[in-house]
């Protein structure tokens, strides 16, 4: 299987911060695979997705490797970046209202990359824009081409953003919280469109979200991220049936289930680790119910294989016995 996105040991640090923004992050997305990257805000998940397009925070020092469609983008020249952005990967952003230039017509927005990058004629570009708007389920493509962004609803604009990402005919679609700014029904519609595109076009998808249940239900594999580090990586089924990292368990416990009786919610106590705070040992130690002083704050856990999962917890092995004894969670 072809690896579309291969991030290895990626560390992004900025002077004046207590901890790196990303710390030894490794992550892969294969051809046609849907992978989720889950975490609270500030965990570094959006930063990780942006690195796939060579978008690094200004002034940051970057080490490690990010290979996209066979091209290394860390310290890449403009030519390589352009190749990746124009033909391998494209991104859908969280807030479509902020993502579409407010003063240009939808038609200009969509045909601009087709004409300037893909080199299509005006007529070809327009035809393709119409086709893409149809593909993302817009009701009246010819009219939408003449509309301005403020004339469309958030859900419609997010479809436009998806169509825009598809103008590159990418193999990898990076979706940064694509439904967070939308209402619940629209969220489901957008996820359905993404699922269909993935099947029809064989797209690889990296879904960035804070919603672990959503991630596990639509993706093949899930990475759980905390304070710039990967805490757990597992196939979706394994992650939800046997969550091994205390943080993963906390995330599953803090979201209400979509069906069935409402259990007692157990939100994770404390707040996510800020960028100004230095870490020693496990970054989750301050909020972890299983923390062992002297162990967890002294040794930094690395990802180790347990069953189908990879877990960065020093007590992973013993905790699994414990949870299985209790019948999970």
């Amino acid at each position: 299987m072809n690896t579309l996105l291969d991030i290895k040991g990626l560390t992004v640090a900025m002077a004046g911060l207590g901890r790196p923004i990303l710390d030894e992050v490794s992550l892969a997305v294969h051809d046609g695979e849907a992978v989720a990257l889950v975490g609270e805000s500030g965990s570094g998940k959006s930063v990780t997705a942006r690195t796939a397009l060579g978008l690094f925070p200004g002034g940051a020092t970057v080490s490690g490797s990010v290979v996209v469609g066979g091209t290394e983008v860390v310290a890449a020249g403009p030519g390589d970046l352009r190749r990746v952005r124009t033909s391998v990967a494209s991104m859908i952003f969280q807030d479509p209202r902020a993502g579409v230039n407010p003063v240009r017509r939808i038609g200009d927005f969509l045909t601009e990359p087709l004409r300037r990058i893909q080199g299509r004629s005006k007529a070809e570009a327009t035809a393709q824009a119409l086709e893409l708007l149809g593909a993302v389920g817009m009701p009246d493509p010819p009219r939408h081409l003449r509309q301005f962004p403020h004339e469309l609803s958030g859900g419609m604009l997010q479809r436009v953003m998806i169509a825009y990402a598809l103008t590159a005919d990418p193999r990898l679609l990076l979706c940064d919280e694509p439904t967070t700014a939308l209402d619940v029904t629209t969220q489901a519609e957008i996820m359905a469109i993404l699922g269909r595109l993935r099947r029809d076009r064989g797209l690889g998808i990296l879904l960035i979200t804070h919603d672990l249940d959503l991630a596990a239900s639509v993706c093949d594999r899930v990475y759980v991220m905390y304070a710039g580090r990967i805490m757990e990586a597992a196939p979706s089924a394994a992650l939800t049936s046997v969550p091994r990292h205390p943080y993963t368990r906390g995330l599953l416990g803090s979201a209400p289930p979509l069906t069935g009786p409402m259990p007692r919610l157990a939100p994770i106590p404390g707040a996510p680790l800020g960028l100004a705070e230095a870490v020693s040992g496990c970054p989750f130690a301050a909020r972890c119910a299983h923390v062992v002083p002297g162990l967890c704050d002294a040794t930094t856990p690395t990802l180790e294989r347990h069953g189908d999962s990879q877990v960065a917890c020093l007590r992973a092995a013993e905790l699994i016995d414990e949870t299985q004894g209790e019948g999970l969670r």
Partner: protein
Amino acid sequence: MWLRRVGAMALTLLVTSFLVFSSLYLAPGDPVAFLVKGRSPSPDQLAAIRHEYGFDKPFPVRYWDWLTGMLHGDFGQSYQLHASVASVIGSRLPSTLLLVGLSTVLIVVFGVGLGIFGALRKGKGVVVLVTVGAAVPSFTAAIVLRSVFGVRLGWFPTVGTGSGFGDELHHMVLPAVALTITFMALVTRVTRASMLEELGREHVEVVTSRGLSRSTVIRRHVLRNALGPVVTVSGLLISGLLVSTAIVESAFGMNGVGSLLVTSVDHMDFPVVQAIVLLVVATFVVVNTVVDLVYPLIDPRVRAA
């Protein structure tokens, strides 16, 4: 919408004309005293002069005469120059228009250009330049420019209006620069701030991440979106240029509408002053109406509102 704008424009001009006329009517000093300058006329002669110039009529009648006269293109007679106001202003208008035109070009080209440069470069050079530029009053600029580029280096003439288009333009350079330094600095500042704001927007990241070249992104998404405030401020400044010509034309000994305004005020030449003030206001109103009409083309969101 057009009809309403034109109506509002006409109303503004009407109200202004009344304010202009009445303010000079109420101003201290008597134009007759100037007209008879030094001589001591008999009461009969004085009454004759008053009658000739219409000073004996009541205020509403005089305003009405003035207003209807203007609508027929008759702005009255200059007390000072013994010619019609229209011809006095008309003969000086071309040189002032050239000065205003050249200044407009300077403001737009250098103001906007420097603003773009300042937004795209990391350095603080442009900010310093702008801060200094905005603080220089035009008469100070006039004195410095004349002594450096006119007297010391001899690159430009320091006085007069010149003859023939090329020569006139040559004469205009220093006055235009003196006139526009402050305005250029303001436009630069607004352009730079507006560009920086747009550069940080997410839609710019979106088109960048899609692989559009930096120059395309800057031109079509940053500059294009930053235009709104730039056009508004430029419009305001450019319509104010006519007033500022008074200082610069006097400083450079130029025979334009601005210097005419100064001498006319000195000599209580009310008809000329009234006409010029009204001209200034009319320019202001017209330029701002144009800006208002152009704005929806720049930002389609105001079209809906």
